[in-house]
């Protein structure tokens, strides 16, 4: 059968998003699930971010797929739906599927007649089983998928049936390696800032922390699994690109595995530059390991610094400290690893707090500071706490660049403060380049064209991002959430203040090593998978 896997654009074409300038990642979700069925089916991946507007319809009408699948984060949800709706319109007999973070965490939002199956959780085995069933059932147009774990399917009367949860594959080594030939057509076009051409792989799934704004640990039900060192290096070696982005949300988490990986890289003499995401506390506590990773090609580490304030970090359940941030950054720059630091400004911030953050960033010499706004993403603990206080339900505004909760400053002033972030932290970037140049003198000259390319694009991005009125226009007419309807102000929202530890100390499951600083928000700790188990008990399989 012909299976078309579509990476949607995150917004309407032409609207600004991270993928335009900062980070355009390979659609690894699609190559992963595509590779699981490739042996028996003809699979194509269409990345709409790198196609003309009519590519989807032209492919549908000429290639006539039997199955169309798409993926969705929160911001992409409308686009993913538009893809499947279009697929049904152009190829009425097609089977439509959606998977990914948002459908897993908020499946009800995809309950439309043009979505046949909602896939929750890890997709490889689920898609395999769906395809086995559909191969047998298609002739009779039987869209019953009872018993296929990890799915929500529509029965003939249009009722959405909920199957039991899909258990995670015990070892990532058992999953097929994503076949990057599926996206051969787009090779050379993916990037992270100036690192390009870039390949993307993953080497672990899940995270064992439980930050309350993050969806990862919830998606993977608080479990972490790793790919073996050999498989990782195999994959890196197989990439033709000079840069590889390791997509793990928390690469730096298991010391033993990091050591094993370094051993393997050294044994095989891997010559690749690579980038990944990891926590600052690990880097701060393991300087010798960071040095080894850097020698083995690590050139950039993206970390959630989040804040310059321990109370704020604690309120987010980050379980780190600003001193660790500081120390990690020193270690990284000494080893020639560019630090990309994500900072989270809060809607209840004053001008002084903005100024304090920018000053802090400048003191760190961070190479790529990225600024976001605290956003309760659907499916996270924060969302459960604040869903009634949201000013908007428009998922496009959940891109971490818009304040979906009431701000303390008038919104115009809030955005004006937020928008000056990049100008205000130029010093940090300049100094970071100096450090980097010292540690890796040949890197910049060797990659000068990509650096120029990146700055050329970034400058254009800045024209939008630097204009705070553009943010106000983005939300015009769209502030229609429950908080907006109730006319809430910032004072009605009990933002995490950082003094919850007083109450949390009494809380019996406050972590013992919290030392009075690490606190837990008093919010329910149910996750999506608990609900599925319940639902499936009711609906039966």
């Amino acid at each position, binding site marked *: 059968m012909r299976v078309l896997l579509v990476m949607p654009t995150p917004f309407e074409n*032409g609207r600004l998003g991270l993928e335009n300038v900062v980070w355009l990642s390979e659609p690894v979700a699609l190559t992963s699930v595509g590779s699981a069925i490739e042996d028996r089916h003809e699979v194509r991946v269409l990345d709409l971010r790198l196609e003309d*507007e009519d590519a989807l319809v032209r492919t549908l009408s000429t290639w006539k797929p039997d199955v169309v699948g798409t993926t969705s984060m929160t911001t992409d949800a409308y686009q993913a*739906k538009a893809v499947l709706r279009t697929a049904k319109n152009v190829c009425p007999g097609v089977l439509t599927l959606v998977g990914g973070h948002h459908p897993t965490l908020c499946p009800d939002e995809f309950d439309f007649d043009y979505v046949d199956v909602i896939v929750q959780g890890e997709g490889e085995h689920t898609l395999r089983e769906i395809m086995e069933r559909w191969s047998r059932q298609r002739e009779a147009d039987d869209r019953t998928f009872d018993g296929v774990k990890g799915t929500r399917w529509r029965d003939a009367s249009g009722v959405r049936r909920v199957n039991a949860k899909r258990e995670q594959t015990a070892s990532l080594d058992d999953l097929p390696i994503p076949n990057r030939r599926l996206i051969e057509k787009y090779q050379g076009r993916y990037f992270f800032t100036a690192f390009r051409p870039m390949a993307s792989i993953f080497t672990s799934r899940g995270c064992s922390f439980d930050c309350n704004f993050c969806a990862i640990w919830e998606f993977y039900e608080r479990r972490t699994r790793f790919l073996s060192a050999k498989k990782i290096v195999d994959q890196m070696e197989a990439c033709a690109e000079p840069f590889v982005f390791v997509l793990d949300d928390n690469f730096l988490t298991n010391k033993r595995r990091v050591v094993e990986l370094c051993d393997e890289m050294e044994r095989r003499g891997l010559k690749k530059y690579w980038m990944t995401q990891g926590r600052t506390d690990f880097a701060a506590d393991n300087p010798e390991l960071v040095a080894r990773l850097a020698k083995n090609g690590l050139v950039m580490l993206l970390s959630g610094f989040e804040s310059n304030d321990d109370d704020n970090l604690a309120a987010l359940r980050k379980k780190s400290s600003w001193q660790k941030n500081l120390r990690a950054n020193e270690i990284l720059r000494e080893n020639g690893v560019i630090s990309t630091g994500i900072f989270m400004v809060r809607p209840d911030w004053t001008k002084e707090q903005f100024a304090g953050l920018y000053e802090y960033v400048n003191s760190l010499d961070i190479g790529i500071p990225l600024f976001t706004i605290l956003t309760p993403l659907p499916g996270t603990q924060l969302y459960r706490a604040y869903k009634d206080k949201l000013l908007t339900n428009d998922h496009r505004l959940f891109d971490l660049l818009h304040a979906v909760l009431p701000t303390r400053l008038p919104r115009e002033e809030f955005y004006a403060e937020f928008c000056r972030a990049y100008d205000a932290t130029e010093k940090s970037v300049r100094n970071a380049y100096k450090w980097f140049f010292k540690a890796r003198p040949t890197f910049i000259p060797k990659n000068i064209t990509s650096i120029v390319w990146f700055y050329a694009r970034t400058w254009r991005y800045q024209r939008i991002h630097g204009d705070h009125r553009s943010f106000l226009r983005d939300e015009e007419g769209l502030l229609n959430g429950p908080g907006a309807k109730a006319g809430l102000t910032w004072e009605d929202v009990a933002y995490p203040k950082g003094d919850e530890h007083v109450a949390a100390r009494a809380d019996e499951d406050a972590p013992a090593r919290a030392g009075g600083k690490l606190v837990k928000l008093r919010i329910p700790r149910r996750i999506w998978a608990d609900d599925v188990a319940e639902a499936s008990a009711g609906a039966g399989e």
Partner: protein
Amino acid sequence: MMGDLASVEKREAPAPPASDTAAPAGASAPGVTAAARRFLADLRVEIESHPGVNHLFLGRCATSPFARQDYRVFGENHYPLVCVFTSYLERLLIRAPTSDAKLWLAKVLVDEYGEGSEGEDHATLYGHFLRACGSSVPDRADTVKVPAPAFEFVSEHRRIVSEEPFLVGLGAVGPGHEWAIPKMFDAVIPGLRRAGFTPEEIDYFTLHVEQDVDHGAWLEEALLRFGGTDEARAQIRRGAILSLEARARFWSGVQRAVVRWRQPSAVRVDGASPRTIAREILMTAWDGSPRLRALEAGYDSLLARRRPTIRELIEQSRR
């Protein structure tokens, strides 16, 4: 796209012409009719799966919570099409090769002028919608210039109905509109409802879905008669496709306008072909130079000045 042969209420189909110079020769021969039927079935599939009809922007209307403000931009871009649709039919009426054909087009026109919609022509209906969006464009038709995407669409259709063979014109305003509109509006209507418009405010859209579905049957009947020869069929198809290609460009333009009112200096979309670094730098240098930007703005406003106002567009099409 006013009416688009659409405003005719469900009633008996006007009899299509029995014969036509190029078209219906031998239409009565059973073999040809079967070919014509097959042609029509294929054409309908081709139209209904065309990128112009299934433009992702329309899908986005169905699935994204666009606000009234967005629909205002949508509507202001769409309105000129609605205002001049009848002129295509009028043009074809003059050119129709037989009196049967004339009769058929005239009947459609009568409905377009408002007989099928309680005396309100479709431009007036659209005006209600625009006002509900907060737009005063219908009241300022004398001064508001036709937006570029609409002007391009209208110009292309004018060209089709006046310079191309009669059947190409018929393909464009017949199946190219009639079969396309229900599917397109099917996507827009849920979005309009989500944005909070009342049923009366979006009458224009719902009317066209209901009516156009009814009209399918009699249009098909007429086309069967016209599409008797390979040449005639090719002409009808060509007209429909030309119209839909223009439609696809139109929706891309509307989408761009909807994005740009919120983000005036929105990013330049990458698209299918990668840009060279030189181009990337040139673009940035261009955007970064106040002089070059002023030049670009001057050029844009020159183009805009050369476009007619909505009133002028309507008057031109009466000529």
